[in-house]
Protein backbone atom coordinates (compact mmCIF):
# COMPACT_ATOMS: atom_id res chain seq x y z
CA UNK A 1 0.00 0.00 0.00
CA UNK A 2 2.82 2.43 0.87
CA UNK A 3 6.49 2.14 -0.04
CA UNK A 4 9.60 4.18 0.53
CA UNK A 5 12.13 3.40 -2.19
CA UNK A 6 15.74 4.53 -2.49
CA UNK A 7 16.02 3.92 -6.24
CA UNK A 8 14.25 5.31 -9.34
CA UNK A 9 10.82 3.83 -10.05
CA UNK A 10 8.53 3.98 -13.05
CA UNK A 11 5.15 5.68 -12.48
CA UNK A 12 3.74 4.25 -15.73
CA UNK A 13 4.51 0.65 -14.74
CA UNK A 14 3.09 1.34 -11.30
CA UNK A 15 -0.11 2.67 -12.85
CA UNK A 16 -0.28 -0.43 -15.07
CA UNK A 17 -0.06 -2.78 -12.08
CA UNK A 18 -2.51 -0.70 -10.08
CA UNK A 19 -5.01 -0.55 -12.95
CA UNK A 20 -4.84 -4.32 -13.47
CA UNK A 21 -5.51 -4.85 -9.78
CA UNK A 22 -8.35 -2.28 -9.72
CA UNK A 23 -9.97 -3.25 -13.01
CA UNK A 24 -13.48 -3.25 -11.52
CA UNK A 25 -13.16 0.21 -10.01
CA UNK A 26 -14.31 2.42 -12.85
CA UNK A 27 -12.28 5.48 -11.83
CA UNK A 28 -8.53 5.65 -11.28
CA UNK A 29 -6.63 8.83 -10.46
CA UNK A 30 -2.85 9.06 -10.33
CA UNK A 31 -0.53 11.82 -9.24
CA UNK A 32 3.14 11.86 -10.15
CA UNK A 33 5.49 14.40 -8.61
CA UNK A 34 8.79 14.88 -10.38
CA UNK A 35 12.03 16.61 -9.41
CA UNK A 36 11.94 20.03 -11.04
CA UNK A 37 15.09 21.30 -12.71
CA UNK A 38 14.71 24.66 -10.99
CA UNK A 39 13.65 25.70 -7.51
CA UNK A 40 13.13 29.09 -5.82
CA UNK A 41 16.87 29.18 -5.22
CA UNK A 42 17.79 28.47 -8.87
CA UNK A 43 18.83 25.37 -10.82
CA UNK A 44 18.77 22.08 -8.93
CA UNK A 45 21.15 19.28 -9.91
CA UNK A 46 20.26 16.92 -7.06
CA UNK A 47 17.40 16.56 -4.61
CA UNK A 48 17.95 14.59 -1.42
CA UNK A 49 15.06 13.35 0.70
CA UNK A 50 15.55 11.97 4.16
CA UNK A 51 12.97 9.93 6.09
CA UNK A 52 12.95 8.81 9.71
CA UNK A 53 11.63 5.29 10.06
CA UNK A 54 9.20 4.24 11.33
CA UNK A 55 7.68 7.71 11.89
CA UNK A 56 7.61 8.46 8.18
CA UNK A 57 5.87 5.19 7.29
CA UNK A 58 3.51 5.39 10.27
CA UNK A 59 2.40 8.87 9.21
CA UNK A 60 1.86 7.77 5.61
CA UNK A 61 -0.11 4.73 6.72
CA UNK A 62 -2.29 6.88 8.99
CA UNK A 63 -3.01 9.26 6.10
CA UNK A 64 -4.00 6.32 3.89
CA UNK A 65 -6.31 5.01 6.62
CA UNK A 66 -7.89 8.44 6.96
CA UNK A 67 -8.45 8.57 3.19
CA UNK A 68 -10.05 5.13 3.28
CA UNK A 69 -12.41 6.21 6.05
CA UNK A 70 -13.41 9.41 4.28
CA UNK A 71 -13.87 8.18 0.73
CA UNK A 72 -15.13 4.90 -0.77
CA UNK A 73 -11.84 3.95 -2.38
CA UNK A 74 -11.28 0.33 -3.30
CA UNK A 75 -7.50 0.56 -3.71
CA UNK A 76 -4.71 3.00 -2.98
CA UNK A 77 -1.00 3.02 -3.71
CA UNK A 78 1.64 5.45 -2.46
CA UNK A 79 5.32 5.33 -3.45
CA UNK A 80 7.80 7.90 -2.16
CA UNK A 81 11.46 8.20 -3.07
CA UNK A 82 14.13 8.78 -0.46
CA UNK A 83 17.85 9.47 -0.97
CA UNK A 84 19.36 11.31 -3.94
CA UNK A 85 17.44 11.97 -7.13
CA UNK A 86 17.97 13.91 -10.35
CA UNK A 87 15.68 16.39 -12.14
CA UNK A 88 12.91 14.64 -14.06
CA UNK A 89 12.88 11.60 -11.76
CA UNK A 90 9.66 10.75 -9.94
CA UNK A 91 9.63 11.72 -6.25
CA UNK A 92 6.14 10.55 -5.40
CA UNK A 93 3.33 8.55 -6.93
CA UNK A 94 -0.19 8.27 -5.55
CA UNK A 95 -2.98 6.25 -7.16
CA UNK A 96 -6.55 5.81 -5.97
CA UNK A 97 -9.36 3.66 -7.36
CA UNK A 98 -13.07 4.01 -6.75
CA UNK A 99 -16.43 3.39 -8.33
CA UNK A 100 -16.87 7.15 -8.01
CA UNK A 101 -14.79 9.63 -9.96
CA UNK A 102 -15.08 12.31 -7.28
CA UNK A 103 -13.92 9.99 -4.50
CA UNK A 104 -10.86 8.96 -6.51
CA UNK A 105 -9.94 12.60 -7.20
CA UNK A 106 -10.50 13.82 -3.66
CA UNK A 107 -8.66 10.96 -1.98
CA UNK A 108 -5.61 11.43 -4.24
CA UNK A 109 -5.68 15.18 -3.62
CA UNK A 110 -5.94 14.66 0.15
CA UNK A 111 -3.01 12.22 0.16
CA UNK A 112 -0.86 14.63 -1.83
CA UNK A 113 -1.70 17.45 0.57
CA UNK A 114 -0.56 15.22 3.39
CA UNK A 115 2.63 14.18 1.61
CA UNK A 116 3.55 17.74 0.67
CA UNK A 117 2.79 19.47 3.96
CA UNK A 118 2.86 16.97 6.81
CA UNK A 119 4.73 13.85 5.81
CA UNK A 120 7.98 13.26 7.67
CA UNK A 121 10.62 14.06 5.06
CA UNK A 122 13.53 16.47 5.03
CA UNK A 123 14.65 17.89 1.74
CA UNK A 124 18.05 19.10 0.60
CA UNK A 125 18.58 20.78 -2.76
CA UNK A 126 21.97 20.93 -4.46
CA UNK A 127 22.61 23.65 -7.03
CA UNK A 128 25.48 25.76 -8.33
CA UNK A 129 25.80 27.46 -4.92
CA UNK A 130 25.99 24.20 -3.01
CA UNK A 131 23.51 22.22 -0.94
CA UNK A 132 20.79 23.62 1.33
CA UNK A 133 18.10 22.07 3.47
CA UNK A 134 14.65 23.42 2.54
CA UNK A 135 12.14 24.05 5.30
CA UNK A 136 8.53 25.24 5.13
CA UNK A 137 7.80 28.86 4.35
CA UNK A 138 5.88 30.97 6.85
CA UNK A 139 2.57 30.25 5.08
CA UNK A 140 3.14 26.52 5.46
CA UNK A 141 3.39 26.68 9.24
CA UNK A 142 -0.30 26.75 9.95
CA UNK A 143 -0.91 23.53 8.01
CA UNK A 144 2.15 21.92 9.43
CA UNK A 145 1.19 22.69 13.02
CA UNK A 146 -1.52 20.06 12.73
CA UNK A 147 0.70 17.10 12.10
CA UNK A 148 2.13 16.34 15.51
CA UNK A 149 -1.00 16.21 17.60
CA UNK A 150 -3.77 15.36 15.20
CA UNK A 151 -4.08 11.86 13.86
CA UNK A 152 -7.03 12.66 11.64
CA UNK A 153 -7.13 15.86 9.71
Amino acid sequence: MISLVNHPFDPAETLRDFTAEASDAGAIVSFTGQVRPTAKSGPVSCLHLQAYSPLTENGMRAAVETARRRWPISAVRVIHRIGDMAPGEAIVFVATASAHRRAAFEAADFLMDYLKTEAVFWKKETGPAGAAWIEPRAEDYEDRARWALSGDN
Partner: protein
Amino acid sequence: MARLHFLGRLVDVTGHPSETVDLPAALTDTSSLRQWLDDRGAQDGAFLDPTVRVAINDELVIEPAAIANSDEIAFLPPVGGG
Protein backbone atom coordinates in the same frame (compact mmCIF):
# COMPACT_ATOMS: atom_id res chain seq x y z
CA MET B 1 23.39 4.51 26.74
CA ALA B 2 21.00 6.62 24.67
CA ARG B 3 20.85 6.74 20.92
CA LEU B 4 20.45 10.20 19.38
CA HIS B 5 19.36 10.97 15.81
CA PHE B 6 19.77 14.30 14.04
CA LEU B 7 17.54 14.87 11.03
CA GLY B 8 17.52 17.41 8.22
CA ARG B 9 19.71 20.45 8.79
CA LEU B 10 20.74 19.10 12.21
CA VAL B 11 22.93 16.55 10.42
CA ASP B 12 24.98 19.46 9.13
CA VAL B 13 25.00 21.13 12.56
CA THR B 14 26.38 18.09 14.38
CA GLY B 15 28.34 16.63 11.49
CA HIS B 16 26.81 13.18 11.97
CA PRO B 17 23.32 11.67 11.64
CA SER B 18 23.33 9.76 14.92
CA GLU B 19 25.41 8.90 17.95
CA THR B 20 25.36 6.66 20.98
CA VAL B 21 25.98 8.62 24.15
CA ASP B 22 25.99 8.06 27.90
CA LEU B 23 23.70 10.82 29.10
CA PRO B 24 24.72 12.62 32.32
CA ALA B 25 22.36 11.70 35.16
CA ALA B 26 21.34 15.37 35.50
CA LEU B 27 19.56 15.17 32.13
CA THR B 28 16.06 14.05 33.04
CA ASP B 29 13.96 15.64 30.34
CA THR B 30 14.09 16.89 26.77
CA SER B 31 14.54 20.46 27.94
CA SER B 32 17.80 19.80 29.79
CA LEU B 33 18.95 17.51 26.97
CA ARG B 34 18.43 20.25 24.37
CA GLN B 35 20.45 22.71 26.47
CA TRP B 36 23.21 20.14 27.04
CA LEU B 37 23.49 19.32 23.34
CA ASP B 38 23.56 22.94 22.37
CA ASP B 39 26.22 23.86 24.94
CA ARG B 40 28.31 20.78 24.19
CA GLY B 41 28.82 21.65 20.56
CA ALA B 42 28.48 25.45 20.82
CA GLN B 43 25.65 25.03 18.37
CA ASP B 44 24.24 28.49 18.60
CA GLY B 45 20.76 27.48 19.66
CA ALA B 46 20.14 24.91 16.92
CA PHE B 47 18.84 22.47 19.55
CA LEU B 48 16.84 25.14 21.39
CA ASP B 49 14.79 26.04 18.33
CA PRO B 50 11.15 25.34 19.24
CA THR B 51 10.34 24.35 15.65
CA VAL B 52 12.61 21.32 16.18
CA ARG B 53 10.39 18.52 17.48
CA VAL B 54 11.51 15.54 19.50
CA ALA B 55 10.57 11.88 19.12
CA ILE B 56 11.38 9.38 21.86
CA ASN B 57 11.40 5.71 20.96
CA ASP B 58 9.62 6.47 17.67
CA GLU B 59 6.83 8.58 19.16
CA LEU B 60 6.55 12.34 18.93
CA VAL B 61 6.36 13.83 22.41
CA ILE B 62 4.90 16.94 23.96
CA GLU B 63 7.73 18.71 25.73
CA PRO B 64 9.24 18.78 28.18
CA ALA B 65 9.17 14.98 28.22
CA ALA B 66 11.06 12.63 30.52
CA ILE B 67 14.06 10.83 29.03
CA ALA B 68 16.02 7.77 30.09
CA ASN B 69 19.61 6.86 29.30
CA SER B 70 18.32 3.91 27.23
CA ASP B 71 16.05 5.96 24.97
CA GLU B 72 16.23 6.48 21.24
CA ILE B 73 15.80 10.23 20.87
CA ALA B 74 15.38 12.01 17.51
CA PHE B 75 15.53 15.74 16.78
CA LEU B 76 13.23 16.66 13.91
CA PRO B 77 13.35 20.06 12.19
CA PRO B 78 10.16 21.19 10.43
CA VAL B 79 9.06 18.79 7.69
CA GLY B 80 7.30 19.34 4.40
CA GLY B 81 9.52 22.07 3.01
CA GLY B 82 8.29 23.72 -0.21
